[in-house]
């Protein structure tokens, strides 16, 4: 863009402001989208009273949440209890720094972009554990422990499938990965990796059918049982923002990022392509949530360790062999 250090600072600040604004608006929008999608799948309209098509429903709900009393249980570990919701939101925001929204619309095009996103997303697990432990509640602890086990188990095949793509492109820079999908999207070259990534992404964000840590009928509400008011709101919003991040990463890695099909942009700006693809993926994730029942915890772990990991390892091996041969 510009020249000199000054323009770099301006770019950084503008990027920061845009990221914060965008992430909040996006979270609000996604909550509305989830309720509408859920409603229509369940033969009912969803929110429609507040604002046109119920669009203002989330804002009103947010205001209501802010007005609620913030209760801290007396035997809880106060510092950890209050830190946990903040801790869960921060790493998600960091992920926005490296996402390729358009050809020149990356805040910081780091050469370890992919690594950054996944390194920071693991922080979220720490926050969940902190929240569950600090609540001093058997249900919350059970939920947090399950969440940690689930996240660790599904992190491995997630990273392995991403490694297959990185191996093909020979770089971890997002812009390079997107650029090399000009002729053909990687989803067609690496369908197994793409599917594994999508499944593991659903598990990483604790969405159904992998939502044992939070929406268990018997565990009340899992690790965020004892959280009230806006603290609960933070956990809630962090989940939706996380969903956006993993979908955006999937778009960049497998679905061509901001490129149109076969490189033809058809006159539509790159950022629109990117957002459309991301939101379609988010819609698919939501669709899956309202269709399937929940997997039992031990079946979930079996699935990861006995099916996903061997599959993704095999995929990586095959990719390496094919690259060597070509």
């Amino acid at each position, binding site marked *: 863009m510009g020249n000199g250090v000054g323009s770099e600072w301006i770019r950084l600040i503008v990027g920061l402001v845009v990221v914060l604004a965008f992430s909040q608006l996006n979270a609000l929008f996604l909550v509305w989208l989830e309720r509408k999608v859920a409603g229509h799948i369940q033969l009912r309209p969803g929110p429609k009273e507040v604002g046109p098509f119920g669009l203002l429903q989330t804002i009103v709900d947010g205001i209501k949440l802010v007005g609620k009393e913030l209760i801290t249980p007396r035997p809880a570990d106060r510092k950890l209890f209050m830190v946990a919701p903040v801790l869960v939101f921060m790493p998600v925001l960091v992920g926005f720094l490296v996402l390729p929204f358009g050809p020149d619309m990356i805040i910081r095009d780091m050469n370890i972009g992919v690594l950054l996103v996944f390194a920071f997303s693991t922080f979220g697990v720490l926050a969940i554990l902190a929240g569950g432990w600090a609540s001093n509640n058997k249900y919350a602890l059970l939920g947090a422990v399950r969440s940690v086990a689930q996240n660790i188990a599904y992190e491995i095949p997630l990273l392995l499938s991403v490694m297959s793509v990185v191996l093909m492109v020979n770089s971890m820079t997002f812009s390079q990965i997107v650029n090399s999908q000009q002729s053909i999207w990687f989803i067609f070259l690496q369908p197994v990796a793409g599917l594994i990534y999508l499944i593991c992404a659903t598990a990483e964000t604790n969405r159904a059918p992998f939502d044992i840590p939070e929406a268990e009928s018997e565990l009340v509400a899992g690790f965020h049982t004892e959280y009230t008011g806006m603290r609960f709101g933070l956990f809630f919003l962090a989940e939706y923002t996380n969903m956006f991040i993993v979908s955006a990463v999937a778009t960049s890695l497998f679905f061509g990022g901001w490129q149109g099909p076969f490189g033809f942009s058809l006159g539509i700006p790159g950022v629109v392509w990117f957002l459309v693809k991301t939101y379609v993926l988010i819609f698919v994730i939501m669709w899956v949530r309202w269709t399937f029942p929940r997997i*039992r915890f031990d*079946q979930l772990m079996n699935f990861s360790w006995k099916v996903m990991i061997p599959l993704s390892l095999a995929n990586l091996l095959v990719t390496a062999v094919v690259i060597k041969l070509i």
Partner: protein
Amino acid sequence: MAEKFQEPVVDQIYTLNLGPQHPSTHGVLRVLLDLDGEFIVKADPVIGYGHRGHEKMGENRTYKQFMPNSSRMDYLSGMIYNHGYVLAVEKMAGIQVPERAQHIRVICSELNRISSHLLWFGTYVMDLGGFTPFLYAFDDRERILDILDRVSGSRLTYSYCRFGGVSRDVDVEFIEMTRAFVKRLRSRWSDYHNLVTKNIIFIHRTRDVGVITKEQASQYGVSGPNLRACGIGYDVRKAEPYENYDQFDFEIPIGEKGDALDRYKVRLEEMEQSCRIIEQALDKLPKGPVMAEKVPANVKPPKGDLYFAFESARGLTGYYLVSDGATTPYRLHIRVPSFGNLHVLVEVLKGTLMADAISILGSVDVVIPEIDR
């Protein structure tokens, strides 16, 4: 330094309260679970939160006044309980019921059975995490409630039957609505089977989960679809036919293993058989009066006792009436199927995982207020 650390926690059994306030609603049930990690070592249900004293009320009300009570014990099979109570008193007092009324009562009871199973289906899959089939099942159930509302005046707890018949005749629209409903329900089976029965996650959560053996079933007095899923084909409508059930041609679905998946399949198949009964009853519906003549305003059955059994949506239900010749019963005892169905879980839940406990509790279809009476 070493004193600051606690003893290593080895084999510590902790007690968890599956409390009276429960997201997976079956009524107000509290189960004290002793857990070893995630495995259940002991399960002790605590009931009685909904005890209203129906049996004591039975001794202080005339036979007609007790009619609303009968619906409110198991509110999901309200019509069937109503029907059974009326049949018990009619048998004791020797009141004959005209044919048209018999057919109407059978149609309404079977509609009630379908609506109870639909509600069970929706809530069971919701307990397992699939929220959507609940709304589809309730969509179908609303139609039944509309049909029964038209003819009896209430949606859930009916007092439609009277000693000697029914309170109000049905019109042509009732018949047409019921036929349309049966046709629509049959078209939904494929949806339910594709969405739930063939879903691999659902199958993994229910196959070989919560197996009730035949011995356990016999020891605890399990009845209804739970018993039939174990492989014992006992249905009161076939074993002790009441009303005119022996005129209708229907089958009793029987399972094999007695696990949650079998219980699920048996109930779904039972709904289809109920549709068959309804269709046959509608085809054979004769003209005539719907109320017997000369039924006394205050029924006074002769001295003695009677045990009348019928098949509610949950299983073998019985009214045990002891009469001393007065207008109020001397003793009115109700044998409820959920009593045995819940009691058997004390044994079945041992050694299962916590997550399976919810699946098992849901699959035996217990309604706590009928245990509490």
